[in-house]
């Protein structure tokens, strides 16, 4: 625990020696992986507990339907005050929304083999347990791509060093624990993302013994390629849609 705080302090302050020591440590991949998984679980713990309480103590589906219907009526009441929206169109949208909602709650109210609340708790536990896998998926694929680019730029990291050292980017994401707080949670999320990005670049530079400029390029390039591919596909889709016939 003491060692973890020491590493965190060094990483958050972008201390080069901490990164170098971590890169050269025995079992760097296992250490990085452990940090990433533990932080992701801690960061999601408050949301998990809140979801769990909400699902255990929350109202049954029939009561939820009544509340949601009331909220929907209030929304449409407010919309009626706007000039320019045809009342007939609004009425139809409202009726369709209510009917769709009743279908959703109707499905929720169908008896299941295990009680409804047990299912809700399972879903919360499943969502919580999935968090590290989701984070690992994105991080691992992206880091493999960054490693290839870094190698082309003269990088010297081994696979284990690259994966282990870049996993340190997850440390600022401890701030995500405050995610459920309105406004502040989102702001802290942005801070954690930016801070995490800076740590990722530093980790790439140290692991590969590259300059910060080259490491930044290696980190950004895969994202640029992904955006370019998505952009090209969207443009192609639009062009195909515009072709007559």
């Amino acid at each position, binding site marked *: 625990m003491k060692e973890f705080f020491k590493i965190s302090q060094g990483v958050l302050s972008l201390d080069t020696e901490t990164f170098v020591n971590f890169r050269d440590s025995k079992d760097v991949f296992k250490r990085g992986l452990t940090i990433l998984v533990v932080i992701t679980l801690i960061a999601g713990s408050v949301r998990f507990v809140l979801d769990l309480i909400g699902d255990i103590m929350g109202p049954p589906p029939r009561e939820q339907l009544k509340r949601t219907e009331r909220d929907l009526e209030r929304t449409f009441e407010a919309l009626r005050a706007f000039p320019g929206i045809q009342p007939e169109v609004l009425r139809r949208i409202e009726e369709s929304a209510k009917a*769709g909602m009743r*279908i959703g709650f109707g499905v929720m109210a*169908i008896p299941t083999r*295990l009680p409804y609340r047990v299912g809700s708790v*399972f879903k919360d536990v499943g969502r919580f*347990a999935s968090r590290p896998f989701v984070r*690992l998926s994105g991080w691992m694929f992206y880091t493999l791509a960054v490693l290839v680019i870094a*190698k082309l730029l003269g990088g010297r990291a081994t696979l284990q060093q690259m*994966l282990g050292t870049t996993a340190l980017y997850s440390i600022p994401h401890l701030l995500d624990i405050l995610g459920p707080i309105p406004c502040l949670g989102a702001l802290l999320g942005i801070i954690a993302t930016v801070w995490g990005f800076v740590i990722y670049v530093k980790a790439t530079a140290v692991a590969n013994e590259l300059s910060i400029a080259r490491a930044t390029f290696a980190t950004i390039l895969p994202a640029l390629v992904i955006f370019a591919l998505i952009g090209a596909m969207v443009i192609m889709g639009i062009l195909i849609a515009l072709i007559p016939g």
Partner: protein
Amino acid sequence: MQILRLCLEALLLREEAYSQMSEASTPFLKGFLLIIGVGITISLVGIIGETLEWATIPSTEEIRKVVLEGVRKMPWYKEMAAEAPEALERLDLFLNMIKFITPNPWRAVINVVTTPIAFLISWLVYSFLAHIFARILGGKAKIAQTLGCTALAVSPQLLKLANILPYVEIGGVVGAWTLACNYLAIKIAHRLSSGRAFWATFLPFIIISLLLILLIAGGVALAIATIGALGGKP
């Protein structure tokens, strides 16, 4: 027990595990047993998670009834029934197909047989291609050593043990991790440099992807030609 230890070490990308497998007396047999063992284990564990998930969702027939009843109460239902009755038929068809994507314990039981077979096929095809490319690039290993080492790349599948819990999504991490393990397996078994090992690891994927695209394109072309020959409009 030794093979399980090797598997866990391979998962943590420890190079000693791959070296040990490469130098083992019967790497192919060990790899074969490992793949079968991992395939059966994760499938058995999957039955628990799948059954728990199945027990917390309503029957698909009930869902179908509720949705169709709800749609009939929609304000636009009468107009739609008169103008586009086929849309309602399509909805019914879609609702009937839900049962194929919802959790099903019997399907999970069948996986105990199909998963190890699928693992074996993909392992043999990939390893064979990777071996050829590695040898072209100057690799030194025998085919049994390649097979033994690449069998260790099945270790990320152990992450699916988390599926003992219902509603857990593993995502793409298994694919990325397997890629990393395969890279180490080829690099160490064939004693290749990083660059050559990279190409020997990736080229089989490119070949397999191209073959799949050709196969799908051929299937589509054949289907269109058959429809045309039967007198229908493609």
